């Protein structure tokens, strides 16, 4: 096991003024045995960052350092992937098509010239963990998607690496299998306790798997934190809109004491805004209180219902707040509102998020 320290890492393609910078100085400290998820929309540089940790992509600037359990620390910028003591699971699994499952898992160990008995023990152990025992003689094309995925994981496990790297390993699976594999990965991490970096664009995967997550956008790190922190206190507008489903309502307006002017409406605030002037107000759909049954220090807003979606346990109500769109999530057992209805909404003060429209940063309230 190793701790990974990424300091001010830059990735640039090309040289000189025409160079295209895709990662602008990312820094993160990953503790030994931690499960870190790097999440972001496609093209945000999350896979590139992972590939730089793997050594498949050159590092244009900054430093990546591995510190192993015995305190030995080394900069791996110029170390070949095979010598970094890592294992990687690819999105399309990258199994060798002409080799059996056993050979796929054993290939790296054979190259490392491990004794055959040792290879066999390790592969058998991994096969047992992943329930691949009966499939060891099969070729990858005779396996289902989920089984292939498990072989790819097996190939990583047998190497007994310091760090696991996962590059969107679940995106080729169907929804049910994805949920199931997610649980398996969680269990596996609990069992093996190896430092893991997991790249995904899926926020559900990120929230469920991560001990801490790194939210990335356009080659920059937006926030690092536990899923709870990222959900409860998004550091930027981007994080606020990206994490959470359906996304947070963001109202662009002007604060004036305990009123918020948006789309020609003055919304009463339960607590004065942190400052006056242009601000962005954020409120999650699940945090708006439907109706006016709560007493105490709450704000009262009037919404007009546009569309209602039934999701089973809950309903999504798309409303208008003056000119602005506003989504509310309500319990599925509540009587459904009709389009055109005017509905009162109550706002608890601790549920409001404030952002600076100029910098996009969170404004502490």
């Amino acid at each position, binding site marked *: 096991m190793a701790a990974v320290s990424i300091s001010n890492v830059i990735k640039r393609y090309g040289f000189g003024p025409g160079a295209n910078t895709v990662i602008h100085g990312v820094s993160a400290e990953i503790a030994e045995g931690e499960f870190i998820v790097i999440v972001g929309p496609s093209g945000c540089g999350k896979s590139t960052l992972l590939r730089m940790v793997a050594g498949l992509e050159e590092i244009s600037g900054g430093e990546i350092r591995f510190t192993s359990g015995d305190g030995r620390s080394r900069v791996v910028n110029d170390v070949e992937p095979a010598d970094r003591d890592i294992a990687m699971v690819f999105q399309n699994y990258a199994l060798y*098509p002409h080799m059996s499952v056993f050979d796929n898992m054993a290939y790296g160990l054979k190259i490392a010239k491990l004794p055959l008995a040792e290879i066999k023990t390790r592969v058998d152990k991994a096969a047992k963990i992943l329930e691949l025992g009966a499939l060891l003689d099969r070729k990858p094309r005779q396996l289902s998607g989920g089984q292939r995925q498990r072989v790819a994981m097996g190939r990583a496990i047998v190497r007994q690496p310091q760090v696991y790297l996962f590059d969107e390993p679940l995106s080729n699976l169907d929804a049910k299998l994805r949920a199931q594999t997610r649980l398996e990965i969680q269990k596996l991490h609990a069992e093996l306790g190896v430092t893991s970096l997991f790249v995904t664009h899926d926020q559900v995967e990120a929230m469920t798997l991560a001990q801490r997550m790194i939210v990335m956008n356009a080659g920059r790190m937006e926030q690092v934190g536990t899923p709870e922190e990222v959900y409860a206190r998004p550091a930027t507008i981007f994080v606020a809109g990206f994490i959470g489903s359906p996304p947070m309502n963001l109202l662009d307006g002007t604060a004036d004491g305990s009123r918020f002017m948006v789309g020609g409406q003055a919304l009463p605030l339960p607590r004065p805004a942190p400052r006056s002037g242009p601000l962005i107000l954020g409120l999650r759909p699940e945090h708006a209180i439907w109706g006016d049954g709560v007493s105490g220090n709450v704000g009262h807003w009037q919404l007009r219902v546009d569309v209602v979606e039934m999701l089973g346990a809950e309903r999504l109500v798309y409303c208008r707040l003056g000119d602005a769109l506003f989504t509310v999530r309500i319990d599925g057992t509540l009587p459904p509102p009709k389009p055109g209805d005017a509905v009162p909404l109550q706002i608890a003060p601790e549920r409001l998020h404030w952002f600076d429209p100029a910098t996009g940063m969170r404004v502490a309230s």
Partner: protein
Amino acid sequence: MVERRPFLGFFSHVVLIIGALVVMFPIFVTFIASTQTSEQILQVPMSLWPGSELLKNYRAVLVGGADTTGVSPMGHMLWVTFVMAMTIAVGKITISLLSAFAIVYFRFPGRNFFFWMIFVTLMLPVEVRISPTYKIVSDLGLLNSYAGLTLPLIASATATFLFRQFFLTVPDELAEAARIDGAGPMRFLRDVLLPLSLTNIAALFVIQFIYGWNQYLWPLLVTNDEAMYPIVLGLRRSIGAGGDAAVEWNLVMATAMLAILPPVIVVVLMQKWFVKGLVDTEK
């Protein structure tokens, strides 16, 4: 065929059978002629039943014996041709595999330039560059040698291009996975790319073996020693330059049969590989 009409099925079979017969007939005549005596052949019309001289004719052709034309035994020529065709086929595959590997998997200055240089040579068949090539081969003292026969024919833009296209379809992740597994470039080539290219290699081998086997113009230039004649040249020589009467057509036909045989064997043997490649496509 999508439609199931008995008449159409019958009709297409008739066409196929007629076509096959038309193609087979000359080979059949060649075989019949090779079993007769030279007098029997010259009868008009020639008998279409096998004669009695099968073994005698083939023995004469292979090891010499009743030889009036002064042409050396074909056994040795078959061997020369076999070595030549094998060297060309194996050499072409080896070289183009390696150059395609370099072009696809390594980043070096002038990579594209070299690829296009190779590609451009597609436009220059052996015949176009034959005089300068002859000059070089003769200056190097390679006339009448296997090296002279095969080396100039080994470089192949077509095969390089084919392997390049195939390598481009192999997912990058495979190379990356191998890199993480600690396989160096040559190890990756041997353990991953080579097994995946096997059906391609088999196909190329057949094509190039036949290409090498059928070479006529080039061996004609670089050999003047009978010991280095390939079979096609020998065949031509056995017909002779003189009058018709001197030619022992039965022996010529036997030689022709022998010249056809090895390519046919290669095709038949390799056909299994094609079928295998088609049945279990490994993706």
